[in-house]
């Protein structure tokens, strides 16, 4: 379904080439959910942008993204990407209220999306829009169709956005922090809804989130990013309860301290600046377990159990 191999993203600035994201690889089958987490600026959203083909004209991309029958998205033409977005890829935004056009009624927007994605016209598009609204949990679709985005709450707007995302019967759904601007109840509601529609359409879902609890609960695989690199990826439970990379340990250490109401003792260093990186591991400043090798070269991926870790501690097997 999605097969990303050695994806690197960089940009050219003042003749220098700045690497934003390096060596990302994962694969995802139908019905599976991949969680992507990491701090702000670690490259989480970039992955979704790359999967949407948004970066093709602005960034330098190497590697390969194969999805939904497109062998390499990075080399796909504009028309092909448009076609993919219309029929295969759904996107759920971070800021639902700001993501709906304020001048158009929900009905006008939803019908437009339905028309574009399914090719239905007028009456049948309107019926389809109403059906979609029922599917995302509105009991009175007619009233919602007539209202404007500012008349709905954040959670309701997000459900409308989900309806738009699933209008074309997607094979992939990308959710970029779909719940970060919502309260807990709406958050729960949206995640349940996403789970429900995933069951119905059996799409592969990429869930970018800061919320580790959410990631643990809804994802099959969890990928942790740090400073533009994938540092650890594996089965969600394993990454969460027996993290291997020191950064993941710190991250989940913080999370469990918060859950249990304890003061966190984790010290975290600022990630290295984009244009001033040393040759060694990127987490060297915040890492308590560093060894001599860390300063010399960036670690490659090592497979341990179901996980992959990029850390020198695990080079050549389980922790010594």
């Amino acid at each position, binding site marked *: 379904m999605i097969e990303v191999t050695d994806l690197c993203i960089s940009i050219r600035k003042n003749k220098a080439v700045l690497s934003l994201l390096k060596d990302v690889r994962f694969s995802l089958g139908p019905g599976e959910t991949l969680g992507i987490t990491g701090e702000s600026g670690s490259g989480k959203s970039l992955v979704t942008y790359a999967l*949407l083909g*948004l970066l093709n004209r602005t960034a330098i991309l190497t590697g390969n993204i194969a999805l939904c029958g497109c062998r390499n998205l990075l080399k796909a033409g504009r028309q092909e990407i*448009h076609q993919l*977005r*219309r029929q295969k890829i759904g*996107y759920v*935004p*971070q*800021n639902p*209220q*700001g*993501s*709906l*056009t*304020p*001048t*158009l009624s929900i009905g006008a*927007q939803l019908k*437009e*999306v339905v028309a*574009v*994605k399914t090719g239905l016209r007028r009456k049948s598009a309107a019926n389809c829009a109403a059906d979609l609204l029922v599917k995302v949990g509105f009991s009175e679709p007619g009233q919602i169709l007539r209202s404007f985005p*500012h008349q709905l709450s954040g959670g309701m707007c997000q459900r409308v*956005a989900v309806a*738009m*995302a699933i*209008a*074309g019967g997607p094979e992939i759904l990308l959710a970029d922090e779909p719940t970060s601007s919502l309260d807990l109840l709406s958050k729960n509601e949206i995640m349940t809804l996403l789970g429900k529609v995933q069951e119905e359409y059996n799409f592969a879902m990429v869930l970018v989130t800061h919320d580790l609890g959410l990631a643990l609960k809804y994802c099959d695989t969890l990928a942790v990013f740090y400073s533009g690199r994938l540092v650890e990826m594996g089965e969600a439970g394993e990454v969460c309860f027996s993290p291997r990379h020191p950064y993941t340990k710190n991250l989940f250490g913080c999370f469990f301290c918060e859950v249990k109401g304890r003061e966190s003792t984790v010290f975290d260093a600022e990630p290295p600046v984009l244009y001033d990186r040393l040759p060694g591991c990127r987490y060297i400043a915040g890492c308590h377990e560093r060894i001599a090798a860390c300063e010399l070269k960036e670690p490659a991926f090592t497979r341990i159990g179901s996980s992959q870790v990029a850390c020198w501690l695990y080079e050549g097997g389980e922790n010594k």
Partner: protein
Amino acid sequence: MLIRALKNKLVLVCLILIGLYVVVSIGGTFFFQFEPNSQDLLQANTGPDAAHWLGTDYLGRDLLARIIYGSRISLTIAFFATLINVTVGFLVGSVSGLLGGLADRLLIGLVDIFWCVPPFLIVVMLTVVLEPGVKNIFIALGLVLWIPTARLIRGEVRVIRNAPFVKFARLNGAGSFKLMMRHILPICLPVLLTTAAFSIPDAIMAEAFLSIVGLGVQAPNASLGVLISDGLQSFRVYPWQWLFPVLSLIVLVLCFNILGDALHKAYSYRAKGLLEHD
């Protein structure tokens, strides 16, 4: 939104006054007993009385008739100047904002060059070259007024183009044309409407200025500016000849300004904070 704006009494009064100006200035000369340009030297310089409600000027022409007729010319000039302003400004601004890149730089470079020249200098030069006359005045005014409008619309388009809802619409498969026609340009319209409402008093004032310096509407026709200019010459002896045209200009300009402000408040999505949360 418009209905809520109308509930404001002041706005309603302004709208009625503007309507009155338009109706009277278009129809007024048909049912009014005095011709604006017919002279009656025996009645020259009379003050306001029962026959001539606002008095007469130095040639004995009825001042009310002249003000009505003058308002018609002023409004005509303002309307067409605004039409040119809004059309050209919107076209240049939106093309520049939407295309970006080289086209944007060229267009906005042109706008910047115009921006550096004092607008009245351009208007004065144009009216001198084109010969003074109603048509040429509004062409000259329109050709100057569009410059700030284009910049305004360009800025607006550039902000909206990067708004999350445009990105989301694009990701949902909307093509460039649809994106432009449904998700970007309609959101600029309130700004354009407000600009138009403010452009009308600007044009009226600019035309009045041109008339006062002698480049405006030519005799015997008169706009409000010409009337003010004429009245000014005998201001000390016959103050009403100056006062009434000035009053009617003030009321007209004030009405459009208040209306523009109300439109801005009622329609501007930015003012309502709908574009703010990101």
